[in-house]
């Protein structure tokens, strides 16, 4: 598996509240993206806990979210240990929140399974065709009030957990991304374009710089919402795998 990962903060911010993580354990790949809600408290840390716990599940085969009660206890212990002025103490009461999507790939069986809450998305592309879009399937479905996993169990975002599963083969590419990029991706697809063409050839540190340049270009053109943006893509190479850089999509300018 070839993996590329990049996390770009919202323009004007120095740190992102997203998390993207990929981990391989005994041939099983686990990849997760979580998007912390910027209006909530320590949401970036909550996103990290969700991704770390999911990716550390090792050989566990149940298709489910991480143990939220344990993660909530960890989050609260960390939050209470932070020195904070009066407004942070009030903010602490509101807790942290994040959208989440995770995928587990079993290469020995050519099988994948995915779990998600909210509007972080997973896409599967094969032979220049989008064959999976999970859990959001249309760009119109990206709502202003997303469902989130919350550090406060009273919010119960987990009752909206979605699961999916499928198969994959050599040559397939999976893309996990936070909502802003996912919305752009689906809009491009719905308008007859192939947005994966300018994501699939990103690799290494130069790929991260190139990703940042492209994201900024889209934001400046009003085609991408200014928000923390995370992308992970995994490619399962075929024996005749080649990478061809296609023309840039609409709205992205050459340097």
């Amino acid at each position, binding site marked *: 598996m070839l993996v590329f990962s990049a996390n770009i903060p919202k323009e004007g911010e120095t*740190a992102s509240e997203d998390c993207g993580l990929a981990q391989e354990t005994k041939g099983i790949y686990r990849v997760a993206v979580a998007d912390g809600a*910027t*209006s909530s*408290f*320590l*949401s*970036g*840390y909550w996103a990290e806990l969700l991704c770390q716990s999911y990716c550390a599940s090792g050989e566990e085969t149940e298709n489910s979210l991480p143990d939220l009660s344990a993660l909530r206890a960890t989050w609260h212990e960390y939050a209470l240990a932070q020195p904070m*002025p*009066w*407004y*942070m103490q*009030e*903010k602490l*009461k*509101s807790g942290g929140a994040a959208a989440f999507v995770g995928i587990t790939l079993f290469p020995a069986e050519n099988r994948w399974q995915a779990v998600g809450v909210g509007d972080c998305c997973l896409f599967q592309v094969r032979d220049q065709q989008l064959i999976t879009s999970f859990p959001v399937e249309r760009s119109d479905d990206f709502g*202003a*009030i997303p469902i989130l996993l919350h550090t406060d169990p009273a919010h119960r975002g987990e009752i909206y957990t979605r699961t999916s599963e499928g198969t994959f083969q050599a040559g397939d590419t999976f893309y996990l991304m936070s909502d802003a990029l996912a919305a752009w991706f689906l809009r491009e697809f719905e308008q007859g374009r192939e947005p994966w063409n300018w994501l699939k050839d990103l690799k290494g540190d130069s790929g991260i710089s190139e990703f940042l340049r492209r994201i900024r270009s889209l934001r400046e053109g009003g085609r991408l919402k200014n928000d923390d943006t995370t992308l992970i893509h995994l490619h399962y190479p075929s024996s005749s795998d080649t990478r061809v850089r296609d023309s840039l999509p609409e709205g992205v300018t050459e340097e």
Partner: protein
Amino acid sequence: MAARFGNRDEGVPKSEGVANALNNLLRNLIITCSKSDGVRNYFHVGVIGYGATVAPAWKGRLTGHELVPIRDVAENYARMVETRITEPGFNGAPISRAVTYPVWVEPQAQGSTPMCQALRYAYDILNGWCIRNQVSHPPVVVHITDGEATDGNPAPQMTSLTSLKTNNGPLVLFNVLLSSSKDAKPTSFPDTSEGLADPYSQMLYTEASLLTPHMRQVAWEHGMTLTEESKAFVMNADPSLVVLALEIGTRPGSVY
């Protein structure tokens, strides 16, 4: 929205109700602007009191300041208040607990109502701010009053205020009228002046801005269904409704 302090308090003077609503609004605004690394300066905030005098209403270290970055507001409250609130406990039975919260403004003494002078003062401050901050979101003015102006007809001053704008749109004026009648039905964000019996409330309704699409969305999140003609006008509001009106007008992020 953070917890409101106190229920609808019977017998609480309106001046105290206004101060409570303002302090609660400031508190909620600061909490909304705060991230894990501190308070983001999404706003400059000004509070003008008018009664015996027309002047910035800040107390403590902010005394005399016209517009203050919200981070400075967060760190320079006038005093901390400790009180007890009663709320449902884990098993539903009411429990009483101590809470502390910051205060920035105090109730103004009753007297004359130089509303026109206050509105002109607000215009002078915000005209300069708009010239210097054309790329920013436009100002939101929340005007809370419990009586009629004693220094003339305030409508022209309100019209002047709503003529101010930045590149992102015109100033939004909320008019909040506190009734002298406890029996009067609260009215929030109406799209018609029908039911407003007296000319003064009709004038405040007319001069108030239309709610922006974003404000209507926020109101919808709080269970209110509004129309495109809904105005930024609240009448006979108890303090909790005033806080909602103020929060709808001043939530960070997109105004439009």
